[in-house]
């Protein structure tokens, strides 16, 4: 992929049409604002009192008097315990799943980039990636029954297993593409010097993989953090992650907008911040090989 800086150095398609340039910049700003304003609306609503929450106003201090009440309720007093517990659960589940997916994905990704397998590498890679195409409702039913037998319902290992399984394709894809670009001469000269395949992987290939490893880790983490369907069935008490709390926001007295948006902001903040750190890998990581990235 041509990086953005390369592109902006090249003369643009339109650079001759200067009058059009301002309009293009305006359109770019509109597109950016379209992506951003629902988040801004959620943030502003989360600082409203219950009574102001449905009056359609948006500007704090000018249009309404902001309050920290919703945030205090979510993190303090009796409600705070549930919040912290769910956030802790989410973090532990996502960390565990990310660790498993990244380790397995790195090993398989290295194998698929470096060796030729009898069944065809392209078939193997497709097989790994095709897990992303399966509807989760098809595997959640057998998981309930299996987890019940194995006493994994509502446990940390159980939640790690399901999340690692569905994020594994991201890790395989990112790591395979990364290792495929790794210079073969480095590996071959090390092998000639007497190192074995594992030493080459551990001492040479892996230390040069930090950016790809970080990208794989962050993308797996973000998607595990957001997972709701499996959690709603497999973890509804002790290991309830934060999206379950979000989903239960409307159960008590109908939906209180000020309160729901507070939870929404909490739920999306971490993955959205992580996404800003992996910009270079988003195309490659999320598109299942659609573009080389």
């Amino acid at each position: 992929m041509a990086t953005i800086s390369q592109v902006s150095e090249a003369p643009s398609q339109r650079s001759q049409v200067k009058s059009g340039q301002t309009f293009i910049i305006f359109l770019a700003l509109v597109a950016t604002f379209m992506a951003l304003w629902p988040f801004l609306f959620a943030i502003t609503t989360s600082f409203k009192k219950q009574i102001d929450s449905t009056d359609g106003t948006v500007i704090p201090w000018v249009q309404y008097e902001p309050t920290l009440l919703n945030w205090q309720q979510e993190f303090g007093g009796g409600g705070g315990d549930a919040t912290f517990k769910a956030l802790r659960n989410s973090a532990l589940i996502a960390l565990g799943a990310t660790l498993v997916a990244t380790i397995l994905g790195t090993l398989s990704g290295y194998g698929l980039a470096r060796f030729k397998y009898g069944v065809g590498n392209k078939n193997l890679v497709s097989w790994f990636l095709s897990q992303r195409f399966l509807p989760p409702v098809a595997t959640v039913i057998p998981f309930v029954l299996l987890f019940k037998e194995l006493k994994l319902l509502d446990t940390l290992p159980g939640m790690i297993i399901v999340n690692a399984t569905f994020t594994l394709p991201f890790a395989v894809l990112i790591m395979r593409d990364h290792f495929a670009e790794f210079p073969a001469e480095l590996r071959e000269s090390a092998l000639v010097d007497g190192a074995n395949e594992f030493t080459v992987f551990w001492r040479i290939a892996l230390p040069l993989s930090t950016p790809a490893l970080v990208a794989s880790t962050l993308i797996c983490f973000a998607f595990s953090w957001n997972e709701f369907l499996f959690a709603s069935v497999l973890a509804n008490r002790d290991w309830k992650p934060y999206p379950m709390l979000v989903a239960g926001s409307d159960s008590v007295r109908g939906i209180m907008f000020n309160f729901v948006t507070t939870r929404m902001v909490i739920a999306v903040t971490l993955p959205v911040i992580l996404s800003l750190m992996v910009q270079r890998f988003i195309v490659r990581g999320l598109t299942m090989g659609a573009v080389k990235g």
Partner: protein
Amino acid sequence: MRNNRAKYAFLMPGVIWILLFTLFPLGYSFYLGLTDFRLGREAEFIGFDNYSEILGLDGDGGDDKALSTAGFTAFLAVGSTSMTLLAGTFIAWIFNHDIPFVKQMRAIITMPLFAAPIALGFLGVVIFNETSGPVNNILQGLGLPRVNWFISPWGARFAVLFTDVWQWTPFVFIVVLAAMQGIPEDLFESARLDTKSNWLLFRHITFPLIAPALGTVALLRLVETFKAIDIPFSLTRGGPGQVTQTYSYYTYEKGLVGSFQLGEASALAYLMVIVAIIISAFYFSRVSARFE
């Protein structure tokens, strides 16, 4: 020989993981679909009875709910795929110009992709609210009628559709932008001698060269919306009535809520698996060559 051992040592852990946690559950689910299993009751093997009941092959009509939820799923998949392709391509075209702060704006635009869909559904509840939501206020400001997003069936269908489109347009945007940036600049330079029209340049140079990427991304979008459940779950609870219930959502309710008809739900889910297998075979036949 040693080389061979290393070769499989790298690959096998991942393969074994998927065999255990994807293929085994899928096989188990196929078996369940051949039984009349309900929670708390002995399962009895009934062959393909679940399937013939769902599809109406037993003569007394199919499963109406399966049919209507499949209909809404198709509406969502086709609607969201085409709208995200249009909007994403247009935004990519905008950003394929000389624009200051491209990186920063591109980063902001991709933010919705990383937000939990379950949370976005609730955000939709606030934003599409009939009386206080900004969407209706904007419509009114433009002199358009306010819409009863959650009461009218078409309002609710479009509320789900727009929320999904908002989340996934960035996905098409980043893929198409990458494809556009791969087009050599000199192609435009020579063409500009013949025309000044941006539309003609797009139509005759950009579009043919990004078409393969568009086809691939369309397939990905179809699969992704076809599995959709989180957004309708939190945005509309499938309502009003069940007009915004997706097929996944219906399967979920059948098997995991209420009477826990796990056998029949597994059969419902398996019909989806078959469609997913067909789409993914088609997809990987297009993209897998580069994995060799």
